[in-house]
């Protein structure tokens, strides 16, 4: 599956609707500031926007800013359905799905959803398959144009990739993350037709892009200074402006990634990311060199859910 061009920038909008992120210090922008940010992104040529029912005001803000524009593809996610008991009846489950889809359509000011992802990969089979079954019906009737899954782990990715009706996968990926190649996920993606892959967390919640070692979680087996030294050398060697540039260039250089989801809450961040994404990505050789040189970091570092809570 050869790509025509490097992965594009996808505007991640969790920070437009909620306060979020380890390196996020600015806080959720005002309504006006959020709209300006989205308009500016669209004006600059960003065509893919990532949101979710669970991201607070995000869908509504995107909807207001983008409803009059053509050529925009919004990817949103099903509610996590946290309130549903595991033994809920089929009708209740279908109703909950419809409520989430309905709310998304209203907030986004659309008649159809370009792309709907499961926010929890387990919803593919949870509730006796009722969630996924309802989503397929909505796909077939044209309310949803494309279905997919947002995954946390290679196991979830493999389960999703087994389904022909999955046409979009979102997964966390960065230059330290060996798990996806190791588990054969990358090979499976390459073998698949009709699949869009978005990578999120390319800065690993910001820690890979910072000069501040204290932001890193204390994970056993991780020599933070050594890693930062190595990434600094690669930034220099590949003539990148920063490790943030290096991380983006690496993700965009992957032939199996179509889009890189980057969350932002200020226009300065948008401009900086647009600027970085206009530069060439890393070549396959440069990516391979990084993969050969980075140590095999523990899974505890790669999965923020496993980071030790600050003392």
């Amino acid at each position, binding site marked *: 599956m050869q790509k025509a061009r490097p992965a594009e920038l996808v505007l991640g909008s969790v920070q437009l609707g909620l306060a979020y992120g380890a390196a996020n210090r600015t806080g959720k922008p005002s309504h006006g500031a959020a709209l300006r940010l989205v308009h500016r992104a669209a004006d600059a040529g960003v065509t893919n926007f990532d949101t979710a029912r669970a991201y607070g005001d995000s869908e509504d803000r995107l909807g207001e800013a983008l409803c009059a524009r053509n050529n925009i593809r919004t990817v949103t996610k099903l509610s996590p359905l946290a309130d549903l008991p595991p033994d809920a009846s089929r009708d209740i489950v279908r109703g909950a799905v419809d409520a989430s889809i309905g709310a998304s359509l209203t907030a986004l000011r659309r008649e159809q959803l370009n792309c709907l992802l499961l926010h929890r990969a387990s919803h593919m089979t949870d509730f006796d398959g009722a969630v996924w079954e309802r989503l397929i019906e909505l796909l077939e009737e044209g309310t949803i144009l494309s279905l997919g899954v947002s995954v946390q782990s290679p196991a979830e990715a493999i389960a999703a990739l087994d389904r022909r009706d999955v046409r979009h996968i979102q997964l966390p990926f960065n230059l330290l993350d060996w798990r996806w190649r190791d588990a054969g996920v990358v090979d499976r993606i390459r073998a698949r037709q009709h699949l869009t892959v978005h990578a999120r967390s390319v800065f690993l919640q910001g820690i890979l892009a910072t000069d501040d070692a204290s932001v890193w979680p204390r994970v056993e087996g991780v020599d933070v200074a050594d890693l930062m030294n190595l990434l600094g050398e690669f930034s220099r060697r590949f003539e990148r402006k920063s490790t943030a540039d290096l991380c983006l260039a690496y993700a965009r250089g992957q032939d199996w990634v179509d889009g890189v989801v980057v969350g932002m809450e200020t226009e300065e961040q948008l401009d900086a990311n647009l600027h970085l994404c206009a530069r060439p990505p890393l070549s396959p*050789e440069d990516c*391979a*060199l990084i993969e*050969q040189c980075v140590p095999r970091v523990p899974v505890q570092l790669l999965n923020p859910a496993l980071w030790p809570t600050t003392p």
Partner: protein
Amino acid sequence: MKPLPAKLSGYTETKLIDPFEIFIGPVFETGAKGARRFALVVDERHVNMRAVLHGGMYMTFADLALGQAAWDACDHAAVVTLNMQSQFLRGAKLGEIVEVRPVITRRTRSIIFIRGDFQVDGETVFSCASLWKILGQD
């Protein structure tokens, strides 16, 4: 000359001229001009102290094979190497056969860009990208 290993049936020995290439050779080839594949059988002379193909020998084989491809591409005009970038993935073992099909990725009037993925049994063990200058084309 030793008989060719079974895996190299269809290959013939490449005609080598450079003393250094003869010193580390033989090298084998198959295919038509412009689409030749080259093969090296790793022997005792080629390995390092851990009995895997020495990095320098990988690069020498690359220089040879990619150079032959460059030569094919410009009707046997003289070519010189300007630059080679090599990436080492795994050491080939004694007795293994390393094969490559050089690919011309770009050419201008006086410069040729060639790369090659070197494989043992279909697994890439070494890769190389190089730039060659065609002499007399300034």
